[in-house]
């Protein structure tokens, strides 16, 4: 529970310091809306979430570990590993005679199961063998990257069932011009007429998981224990919390979300490749820190992390719309990350 401080003396600067992300998001949207007229629209809003799905998932992955005072450097390559495993499995199940839908479902289920393994190993190394999280997960980054490369031999997976792309690029709900509503499949309409698509499937899927884990983190004992571990691990141990088991769970959840990001990627881009998430570690950690979590552990919420990820997602899509190169995003995310930390130094009570 991130309670507000009791002091009611919060003057304007402190108020700004505490809510600067919200203000920043408004400014960002205003900026892009002015530069590109088409930016301020429902479609763009959906596009931001669609493009940002993996950032949201990886940010949540990172959040669970950062709350405990750890870090997971492997999320990007666990994601890549999941893209390779799931895409290969989809093809393999298809070859075994499974229908496209069953191939996708079975491959996804198996991928999510296999995706727990890196987290189990990370958590075990950190909790039982006292390997620093930085080292354990950094090594896992190498291991998952290497295995993915071995599996693909440098060739991205192809020939996935077409249905995967339909699902990955489809939306949850469609409204045809007459007002007819249909789910999952785009209705046939006359040429020139536009269909209103509402919420991309992958965004729905991602946020179902995110909401479930927001509930676990915010409302259940296990979530409270993660904050306690990050706040004072000795106190947590002495109070009888099963710290080792909870740490392993945190890393497994991280790995699960990284694998979900991998699945989302495969469904959207119909390919799997080892470096699918190679550039996303920065974004994942940045989202959590911009969301006000301390790298020392014990703070951070799903809601604020989503806001942090939203900043990055808006930047990414916005820059693309105004015709900037992707690299600009990296630079800006890096700068904003530093700014976030500086702002937190100046207003140390934010989010507490």
């Amino acid at each position, binding site marked *: 529970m991130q309670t507000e401080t009791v002091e009611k003396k919060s003057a304007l600067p402190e108020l700004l310091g505490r809510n600067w992300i919200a203000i920043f998001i408004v400014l960002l949207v205003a900026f892009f809306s002015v530069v590109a007229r088409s930016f301020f629209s429902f479609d763009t809003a959906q596009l931001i979430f669609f493009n940002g799905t993996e950032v949201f998932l990886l940010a949540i992955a990172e959040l669970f570990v950062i709350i405990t005072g750890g870090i997971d450097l492997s999320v990007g390559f666990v994601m890549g590993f999941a893209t390779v495993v799931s895409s290969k499995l989809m093809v393999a199940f298809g070859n075994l005679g499974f229908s496209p839908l069953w191939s996708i479902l079975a491959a996804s289920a198996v991928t999510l199961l296999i995706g727990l393994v890196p987290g189990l190993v990370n958590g075990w190394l950190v909790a039982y063998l006292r390997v620093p999280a930085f080292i354990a997960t950094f090594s896992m980054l190498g291991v998952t990257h290497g295995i993915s490369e071995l599996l693909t031999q440098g060739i991205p997976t192809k020939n996935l069932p077409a249905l995967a792309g339909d699902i990955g690029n489809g939306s949850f709900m469609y409204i045809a011009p007459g007002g007819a509503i249909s789910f999952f499949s785009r209705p046939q309409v006359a040429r020139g007429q536009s269909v209103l698509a509402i919420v991309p499937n992958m965004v729905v899927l991602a946020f179902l998981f995110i909401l479930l884990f927001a509930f676990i983190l915010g409302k259940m004992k296990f979530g409270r224990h993660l904050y306690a571990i990050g706040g*004072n691990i000795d106190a947590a141990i002495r109070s009888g919390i099963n710290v080792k088991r909870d740490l392993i769970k945190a890393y497994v959840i991280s790995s699960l979300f990284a694998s979900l990001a991998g699945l989302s990627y495969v469904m959207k881009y119909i390919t799997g490749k080892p470096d699918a998430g190679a550039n996303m570690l920065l974004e994942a950690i940045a989202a959590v820190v911009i969301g006000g979590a301390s790298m020392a552990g014990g703070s951070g919420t799903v809601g604020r992390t989503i806001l942090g990820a939203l900043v990055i997602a808006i930047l990414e899509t916005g820059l693309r719309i105004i015709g900037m190169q992707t690299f600009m995003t990296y630079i800006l995310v890096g700068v904003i990350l530093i700014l976030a930390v500086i702002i937190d130094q100046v207003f140390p009570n934010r989010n507490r």
Partner: protein
Amino acid sequence: MAHLLEAKNITKRFGGLTAVDNVSFHVDEGEVVALVGDNGAGKSTLIKIISGVHKPDEGEIFLNGQKIHIDSPIDAISHGIETIYQDLALAENMDVPSNIFLGRERTKKILGFINVVDHEHMSSESRKVLDRLDIRIPSLKSNIRNLSGGQRQAVAISRSIYWNAKVLIMDEPTAALGISEQKKVLELVSSLRKQGIAIIIISHQMYDVFSVADRIIVMRRGIKAGERLVKDTSTEEIVSLIVGAESVEKRSQ
């Protein structure tokens, strides 16, 4: 009648060093026993044996005359023996109820099968225990890091009391506090005594010892150098026992 807590002939060795050498002591309901001694005299080791951190090499522990085995801190707690260490073991990033219920959160069921942490219940229970001990903390929602040293100590004590401590062990409870806060903590100790809790205090502060304790046990180099009722002794006598100026008493058996 049997003592509430009695330790008999406790010995603990670390390699060649005998940290606690054949020490016996007891504490009764509503009694405050101060454990004093120079650094390295064995006070902390003795306390850690009672609280389950160390296992004694020799000796027995009795609770209400029943022999008990304390193999871990959890065992000690389950027998109603709570220890408050100097670092207090609070999660500073969390609020008061979360700390009082740390690791033992109350839950309620929603939708019939999902257990969620019951913040309202934990808050009202925390309020009750704080009121009972006459502890004033402006807002339970404050994180521990926003509280003063004395308030933190009070939260740690409340936690022990809430979980029905019969014996409360406090390691240097006033060491890190300002003068007025020291006084409050000592008042708190007196009120705990009135509620029938047996208290063992480790302290270096003679003032504290003489203001709250009923009995003083002096340790020196692992042995019990003496035991005095506060009303029958003086600071000078205790200090000389601590430094060993007086002839060593025969080991009480």
